[in-house]
């Protein structure tokens, strides 16, 4: 009888340990936002690299604000020799996407025209940095 009880208690112990591990794992996944990926994508604006030496086809989503550039510390790394370390900022305000050149050396072009002040972007607009062309989706 005590044997049975001990076995039972042991299994309960193991069960509780697993319950605990599961709780922690779940909390980590919510913290990392693994559950909220789809929702966030809908609220952000997608940008695709349509022309690039090495990054053609890459896409990223602007939800809040992003800095693009050739620096490792930029939010999105641009592999383009004509890009500055921190070349431009893409930000969303009230559902609109805004491009802001950060005083880059070689400039930012929207639909072929160089921009120096913050400019609203629409779907299908082409943003060019050096030899890289991005399209707003």
């Amino acid at each position, binding site marked *: 009888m*005590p044997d049975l009880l*001990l*076995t039972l*208690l*042991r*299994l309960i*112990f*193991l069960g*509780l*340990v*697993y319950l*605990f*591990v599961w*709780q*922690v*794992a779940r*909390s*980590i996944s*919510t*913290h*990392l936002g693994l559950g909220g990926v789809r929702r966030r994508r809908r609220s952000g604006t997608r940008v695709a690299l349509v022309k690039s030496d090495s990054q053609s086809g890459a896409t990223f989503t602007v939800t809040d604000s992003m800095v693009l550039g050739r620096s490792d*510390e930029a939010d999105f790394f641009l592999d383009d020799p004509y890009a500055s370390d921190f070349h431009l900022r893409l930000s969303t305000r009230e559902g609109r996407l805004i491009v802001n050149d950060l005083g880059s050396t070689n400039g930012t072009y929207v639909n072929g025209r160089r921009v120096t002040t913050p400019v609203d972007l629409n779907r299908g607009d082409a943003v060019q940095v050096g030899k890289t062309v991005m399209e707003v989706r």
Partner: protein
Amino acid sequence: MTRDLQPTLLVGAAALAAFGVSLVNFAAQGTVDAQVGLTFGTVLVAFGGVFVATRRFAPEAVPHLLPPVAVIAGFGFVEIFRLNPFRAGLQRWWLLIGAALAAVVLAWIARNGLPSLRRYRNTQLLVAVGLLLMPLLPSEGSLPIRGLEVNGSRLWIEIDLYITQLNFQPGEVAKLLFVVFLASYLADRQPALKGAHRRIGRLTLPEPRQLGPLLLVWLGSLGILISQRDLGASLLLFLVFVAMLYVATGEGGYLVGGGMLIAIGGVASWQMFDHVQRRVSAWLDPFGAFEDAGYQVAQGIFGMGTGSLAGSGPGLGQPELIPNAITDFIFAAVGEEFGFAGTVAVLGCYALAIATGFGIALRSRDRFNKLLAFGLTFVFAIQTFLIIGGVLRVVPLTGIALPFMSYGGSALVGNFMLVALLLAVSHEEATR
């Protein structure tokens, strides 16, 4: 996790440890005694204390590093208590001391800021090397600090406090200093180390001049292997160095070079040293070397085999047959008494803690913070891998403490400080 779940989980971890101790009690004497309450209190005060310190000094720190670590510590404590109640009593104090030191580290960083760790870089390296060399002090003599040889390795020092003697493994603290040093060194030197490579055909090799530090650390870790006969610390230091170099530069060549140096060093030390040879034969064929070094590994396998799926139950197995069951082989003892299910739960906790650590590193924007978080997590992870891998015969056995589980004050103190540093980095990054 909402941050508010963390205290609940920590109480849960303490309750689990107390439950485990009550099972041990129950198996031994049919009743429970005061140890259950003491265990609950100790784990709760230790980890609750670190939690309160985090709230006070690093409120933005990630909330899910402490809970898995608390469960690991609780699990280890149950097994230590079951094997050696006297040592468990000491471990209790070490848990509290370690937690207090973690709080001190958090408070110090809150006061001075993480960047202050980057000052006095060379002093840190010197202190680390000094600590590593300390066990080589003569074991006889009038000095208040003496080197001590335990199980053939010279890792311990004995500090004479006139009232009592304190044994300590200075290498456990040296590891942390080494990581902090490397993080600040590599953060400053990154541009120089990056892109300094030479192409030979399709192979990219680091510039020979850049391999200098690599060779130096390699020689240093071989020196530890020779002078202290400690395979674990020697391998750990070199692996951490290579991994951090790779992370800082992204140059795969360092991994190739480091791997080759490990291979050369491994084969050479296998041929030259008896103690390495015995480890390797115990790894390849523990039952063939049963009379010698294979005994421990073989007993561990017997234990885990007996434990089967759900274990024999705490207090009902015979893990005391495994030599060093409360230190190096605690994983095998858990495997015997809690079975495969218990070991997987332990591995799960380690995986969660390590994933959280790497997550902190990935999210860090500051180069020094990133390297520091990576290096600390890597030290934690590689120790876990080396010793569990050694017990399971994945790699040759290296005498390293299983973080937060093995009995051992110095390791516990070192690992508490490691966790405190990780928490401080995550707080700093969240508030930048």
